[in-house]
């Protein structure tokens, strides 16, 4: 693509002709690296070139940083330098690369850089320049180590048997009793042990041993984790070299079988070792002891409380029972008393009734049948009829009126009731009263 030629009559450098169409304001989607760049530009008010400058500066810094802080040892032990390359598996391969300080923690990047540093020092070409010939033994080991370290599977196999990275547990205390104080600080002695064992864990993060202030939950979690430890440790690295099967297939199979069983045996041993380790640590753990003690105390206190509680409850139950019995007896007494008084009242009422009836009859008799003694039988019969028809109230009323009064009053009273009763239809065959 090409640009057109300038017409002859064009003057000046730039001629603005028109304005460009108005822009539309829209939200952009706040995602992606280019948006972040846009945001930085907008927020910091950078122009494009300023932004690029700053970005360029940043990149330079990053590159520099990556080359700093290398701490790889290139002065190896003379013994290691003289090691037979055929026996390379027996060397400390991290020491070979100068990564003793990092060991299993070394990153891939560190391994690459450490290897480069070692190569610069130990390359056979450099050695021969110094006068020694055929001194490529150690370089071979470096190459082997580098190859192994960059293969994650092989590196794990080596890490599994890297004795230098192991931290041994503290020596067992001599005293037999559990309650004796430990001759070492529990946390300082066991912390590094678990830290180093943690590298074999399939599960991350691995809980740490913690401090004397750790809560019971944390401690339980810690021991539970270690009791169910999921380890990737394997022992292929210690295998006997398997001969290739061109010479003797049976022999090869035999060696393979032997290797397999040896691995299995070592793995079981390792699992047992770890289990023992965890058990010992848990037995020695002062926190667990403290918890057990406090738990025991709490239990006893509870028991005590429970006993005290039981006594109180028994006393309460007894008191309640007594109260109930008392109440029952009182109730029975009251009931019988009520029965008696009821009976008495009934009798009294009966007597009163009898007395009233007698009073009425006597009143009639005493008044000489109101001067009509010839009709005595009729009057008597009438009185009886009346008395039978009276209810208790009426009876008392009439008895009160007639008792001890003179003949006229008694007769009037009896006449009145007789009329009343006849009117209400309670009696019908009265012959004398009410007539």
């Amino acid at each position: 693509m090409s640009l057109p030629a300038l017409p002859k009559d064009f003057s000046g450098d730039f001629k603005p002709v028109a304005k460009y169409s108005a822009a539309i304001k829209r939200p952009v989607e706040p995602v992606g690296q280019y948006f972040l760049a846009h945001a930085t530009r907008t927020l910091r008010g950078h122009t494009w070139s300023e932004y690029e400058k700053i970005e360029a500066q940043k990149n330079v810094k990053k590159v520099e940083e990556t080359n700093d802080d290398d701490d790889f040892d290139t002065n190896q032990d003379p013994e290691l330098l003289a090691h037979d390359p055929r026996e390379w598996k027996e060397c400390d391969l991290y020491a070979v690369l100068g990564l003793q300080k990092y060991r299993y923690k070394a990153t891939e990047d560190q391994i690459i850089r450490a290897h480069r540093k070692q190569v610069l020092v130990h390359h056979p070409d450099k050695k021969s320049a110094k006068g020694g010939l055929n001194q490529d033994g150690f370089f071979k080991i470096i190459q082997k180590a580098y190859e192994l370290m960059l293969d994650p599977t092989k590196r794990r196999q080596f890490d599994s048997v890297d004795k230098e990275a192991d931290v041994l547990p503290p020596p067992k205390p001599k005293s037999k009793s559990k309650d004796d104080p430990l001759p070492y600080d529990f946390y300082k002695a066991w912390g590094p042990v678990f830290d180093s064992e943690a590298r074999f864990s399939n599960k991350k993060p691995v809980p740490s041993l913690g401090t004397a202030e750790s809560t019971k939950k944390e401690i339980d979690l810690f021991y539970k984790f270690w009791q169910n430890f999921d380890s990737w440790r394997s022992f292929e690295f210690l295998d006997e070299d398997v001969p290739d099967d061109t010479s003797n297939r049976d022999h090869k199979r035999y060696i393979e079988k032997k290797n397999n069983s040896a691995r299995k045996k070592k793995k079981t041993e390792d699992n047992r070792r770890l289990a023992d380790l965890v058990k010992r640590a848990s037995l020695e753990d002062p926190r667990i002891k403290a918890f057990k003690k406090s738990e025991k105390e709490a239990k006893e206190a509870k028991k005590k409380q429970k006993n005290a509680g039981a006594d109180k409850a028994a006393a309460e139950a007894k008191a309640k029972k007594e109260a109930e019995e008392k109440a029952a007896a009182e109730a029975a007494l009251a009931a019988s008393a009520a029965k008696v008084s009821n009976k008495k009242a009934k009798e009294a009422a009966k007597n009163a009734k009898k007395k009233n009836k007698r009073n009425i009859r006597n009143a009639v008799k005493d008044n000489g049948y109101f001067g009509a003694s010839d009709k005595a039988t009729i009057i008597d019969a009438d009185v009886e009829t009346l008395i039978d028809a009276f209810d208790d109230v009426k009876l008392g009323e009439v008895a009160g009126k007639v008792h001890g009064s003179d003949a006229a009053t008694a007769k009037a009273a009896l006449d009145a009731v007789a009329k009343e009763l006849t009117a209400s239809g309670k009696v019908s065959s009265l012959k004398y009263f009410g007539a």
Partner: protein
Amino acid sequence: MVAIGIAFGNSTSSISVTKDGKVDVIANPDGDRFIPSALSYVGDDEYHGAQALAQLVRNPKSTVVNFRDFIGLPFAKVDPTYSQHSAHPVDVKGKVGYEINGKTVTVEEIAERHLKSIKLAAEDYIGQEVEGAVITVPTDFTDAQKETLTKVSESAGLKVLQLINEPTSALLAHLSAKEELLNDKIFVVADFGGIRSDAAVIAVRGGVLTVLSTAHDYNLGGDKLDDSLADFFAKEFQKKYKSDPKKTAKSLAKLKSACIITKKTLSNVQTSTISIDSLADGYDFHTSINRLRFELVGRQIFSKMASFVESVVTKAGLETLDIDEVLLVGGSSNIPKLASNVQFIFPESTVVQAPSLDSKLDNPNELTSKGAALQASMIESFDAEEIAESLQPVVVNTFHVSKPIGIKNAKGEFIQIISRETAYPIRKTITLEASADDILVELYEGKRTIKETVIEAEKYSDDEDSEEEEPEIVKELKYVPGELLGQLAVRGAGKGNKVEVIVNITRDGKLQITARSGAVVVKGEVQSA
């Protein structure tokens, strides 16, 4: 800090993590990459994911599905259509809840439990505690819904770093995987989910994405295809055994879950079988179906989906010609028929990205969560304030040029430098050749024209074929020089030398043009209307 990307869908959710710059969708402990967004309470047990979905057959009333859209909505506004065969939403003080085993559970609690299970699955996979997440939401999620989701997620132990739009997230993942983020293109992202479909037209300009339009259909999705397939099989079953498998909820649920599997299988193979033990009245059902039959059964839905994609383009004020690529997202995008239907409505120049057309593509179901994980890995090192600052309207709302800006070359053609819908500030550079010693650089706005080429139908030699084929018209979008904005003279550039033309639009809308050839530098500036 470990941050993950979560695509939280109505039907399924998926988790993505970035590891060494690579994004992966991870499986939950059940082995599912697409974890059904379902929760079921049976007795005292709580089930998640596929295990919960399986309970739809036996315990539909205590199983919650399709609840994502209900989060943060008042009860009056929810559409319970898709809860018909599961626990029904109930009114809990104006909000949405469910009545499960006599207890009321709000939808927020359900979402919290679901996100918790997602967090656990991610932690199980990574082996580290997950603290933050970028979660995708549909473009029509309201502010209240976003706020509620943030709160719910935080109470599930997941800090929300950012909520991003689903189509944008999918497009980001797609473009990042292909490393095409810097190619200026206009995309249609069509997401065909389980119960709803969403589409968006997105302009990608200099790696910045701008949504031009969105469309939603709450009644279109894979579930509708399952239904039509279930109807088809139900008819066949009834014909054979004189028994209706749709009459009880249980047999219907059985039929539907089998149909889902059959539908998925048919995306990969031509023929599939369906077999259900004791579907209804003790009769077993076993039959086979081929892809063509399935396409016929779901024809109406497929054509609806295609016209849905067309509608979003119209909504953006564009024509199908303007669209450079169509990205199909969501489970239903695996269906070949859908991809070919969508391809049919676009001209040949438009590329449809679907797994049936390009087997090297990522799984369309994974894109959304992958984009979220990418975004998470980008912002996880920032503080919350820094992220919030970059989401301010002053940053997000930017001006976009409405017409393309470019220059005219020696042949009089328009060379586009800044495409339409580009957000500024922006700077673009192109290099051309000088045709003479002194050259003229003319800055133009592009004018959209459509070039029509008529391809005559082939004439058949035998006259028996009386049916005359219509001539085919191929349309092509072309920009020609429109309004002249300015002229720039570069004197002494030297014939045949390279000339660098830099067009820069500043934050305040000044359009600056610089032409440079060796030591010669000429500058000019044009204002915005």
